Each structure stands twice: as structure tokens, then as C-alpha cells.
């Protein structure tokens, strides 16, 4: 059997999925609002079901970027459908909200986020780990730390600002 040269081989979707699934799930989750997080699986499954049905005909140079774009777009479609169902159709420019930070989620794999988070000032990191990652109530974390809920909000905001800056430095995304 004559094998095509590696540069002309279309990789198996399953192999691509194993390699990129962490970042794809993260991108989908980060694009969906909290109340739609249960749709993450649907977003990724839809993308791959369509790829199975209609694989790209051209050679893809950067599969991660290609898959991330598909997942991001589909997540936005799911969001828009939900938004339209909830609020009625809104003007097209409303989609601007989704453009903010483009490029950040795509490059911020789990490891990168973890590294960036480790450089956040300890008190702010403590708040981010408990309130954002563990999704614990701010009131509970405030009581544990002996500070007000308002102070938790401020530490969280400062932590997010510092994390954003760290991520931008790490991933080369301009602020």
C-alpha cells in the first residue's frame, strides 16, 4: 500500500480530539454563560459530528486553531440562540460582547492558566481559588478570611486584573 507523505495526510479526528480536547472544552466553557455551562458537551459534540459528516477538504496547517475557531463559533451560535429565545432577536452589533478578549481563551490552556494564577498575589489568589474555581459563596469565604464581602469583591476584581495581565504576558496577547 502506498502511503501519502505525512505532510499530505489528514489526521484522524479521534487523534486530534485526544490532543486538543482540554483546550476545546475550556474554550467552550469560557464562551458559554454560566447558566449554559451544561451545553458544553453539546457544543463540542456538534462540532465533531459535523466534521465527521463533512471533513475539511483543504489541508489544515494548525488544527488546534482550526478546531478552537469552530468550537468558539458554535458556542457563540448556541449563546445567540438562547439569547434570542430569551430576549427576542437583538441588533446584530450586540455580538460585540463576544469579541472582547478574542485570542485569550484560545491560547490559555489549563497549564497556562495555572501558571499565571500561581503568580497572582497570594490573598487575591486565595479568593480566586475559592470564589471562582471552587464556586463557593463570597459570604462564606469572607467569614473564613475575617473580612467583609465587599473586600472579597475587591480582591477578586484585583485578582482577575492581575491574572489577565499575567495571561497576556504569557500568551503574547496585547491588552
Amino acid at each position, binding site marked *: 500500500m502506498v502511503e501519502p507523505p505525512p505532510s499530505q495526510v489528514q489526521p484522524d479526528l*479521534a487523534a486530534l480530539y*485526544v490532543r486538543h480536547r482540554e483546550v476545546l472544552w475550556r474554550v467552550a466553557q469560557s464562551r458559554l*454563560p454560566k447558566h449554559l455551562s451544561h451545553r458544553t458537551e453539546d457544543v463540542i*459534540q*456538534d462540532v465533531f459530528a459535523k466534521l*465527521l459528516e463533512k471533513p475539511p477538504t483543504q489541508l489544515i496547517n494548525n488544527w488546534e486553531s482550526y478546531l478552537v475557531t469552530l468550537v468558539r463559533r458554535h458556542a457563540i451560535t448556541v449563546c445567540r440562540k438562547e439569547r434570542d429565545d430569551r430576549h427576542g432577536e437583538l441588533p446584530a452589533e450586540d455580538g460585540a460582547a463576544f469579541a472582547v478578549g478574542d485570542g*485569550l481563551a484560545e491560547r490559555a490552556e489549563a497549564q497556562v492558566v495555572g501558571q499565571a494564577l500561581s503568580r497572582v498575589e497570594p490573598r487575591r489568589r486565595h479568593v480566586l481559588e475559592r470564589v471562582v474555581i471552587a464556586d463557593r459563596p463570597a459570604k462564606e469565604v469572607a467569614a473564613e478570611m475575617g473580612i467583609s464581602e465587599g473586600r472579597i469583591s*475587591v480582591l477578586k476584581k484585583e485578582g*482577575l486584573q492581575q491574572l489577565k495581565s499575567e495571561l497576556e504576558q504569557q500568551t503574547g496577547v496585547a491588552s
Partner: protein
Amino acid sequence: MSSAEDLAVLVDALVNDPWMPRPESVSEVEWAEAQSLAEVEKLLGAQGAPALEHDPVAAMLGLRPVPALVLDGPAMKRLRGKLSVSEVANRLQAYGWEVSAADVRSWQNSSAAVALAPALMERIAAVLGSTVEAITRETGSMVDPAIASDPRWESIVERLAAVLRVAWAQAEIRLAGAMTAAAYRHEAPDSFLEAADAYVTRLERSREA
């Protein structure tokens, strides 16, 4: 907007509802800042992919091994012919699989039953110019014989084959892999078939989404 606390409240609101309109009291600069912080918060809160054995997309793509279907090492070695283990590994790598020559050697020499992902076994078979049937052996039934002989099973597998664009036999392996989840293991045939039907229906909808 008057304080850092207000900004934090706005970020929380945006995380929950990215379509909320900009409040009049918030400037465009503050709005952009809140949106980008909401994005960072969602990124940080994202959990990543589930474990492979609980990942439904992995099951759809044929990444969930079927315990009863294992590689036949000697058959693989025979079918490899003049191809070296490195060449086999290189060809698998070209299709995106992270496989080393040592992996290939271990599969063909292992005395233990090696159950690989069906999608990988399909590619190995293709690389060797052979079929999955020729490089594998069944150590038991992939599914309960009562289910396998039910005409509904045949029809469900046929629908899955159409969705995945694979042969019926490959689709059966994929479906058996998807249905190895603990939730289905002890189901009675009727419930198992209903679950398999629901699984395939969902994939059909995904394709149309």
C-alpha cells in the same frame, strides 16, 4: 461607576448574562474592562475536559476501548510484513496518534490482552493494509448476545454507521464502546437498547445542529 466593588458586581453580572445591556452609569471604558474581566473569570472557572472514560465526545469518536475486543499481537506482527515497528509508529503519528515504536512493539509482543481505542485500531489496520477483524480477537461478547441478536440493535448500529460514516462492523464496535459506561452495564436488554437508541438519536441531532 463609583467603586472597585461596583466593577466586581458588574463582572459577576456579565459572567451570568453576557447579553446584558451596558448600564447608563457605566462608561464604555469601564464596560470593556468589565467584559474582559468576565472573560478571565469564565476562563478561570472552566473545568476542562472530563476524564476520557466519561467523555461522550470521546465515545462518539471511537476512543473508548471495548474490553472484549483486544489486539491480536501475533496477527499484527504477521500483517506488518516488511514494515518495521518504527515505520508503523511513524505512519500512526502522521495521522495524529501519539504512538512510539516501543508502543507498537509492546502491543505485538504483549501476552496480556491489549484493548485499544477502536479508532486507533481502525487506523492500525489501515496502516497495515488490513482490517480490524484481522488484527483483533474477541475475548467475549462485545454486548449481551440477547441484545446483539435483537433486530433493533442492528438498526441502531446502522444509523450510527450513517452518522459516523463508517462500516457497520466498525459502528458496532464504537457503539459497544460508548455503551460500556457504568450506567448501562447492568441494564436489561430493553432499557439498554432504549439507551443506545437515545445515544444515536442525540448524535443524529448533533449532525443537524
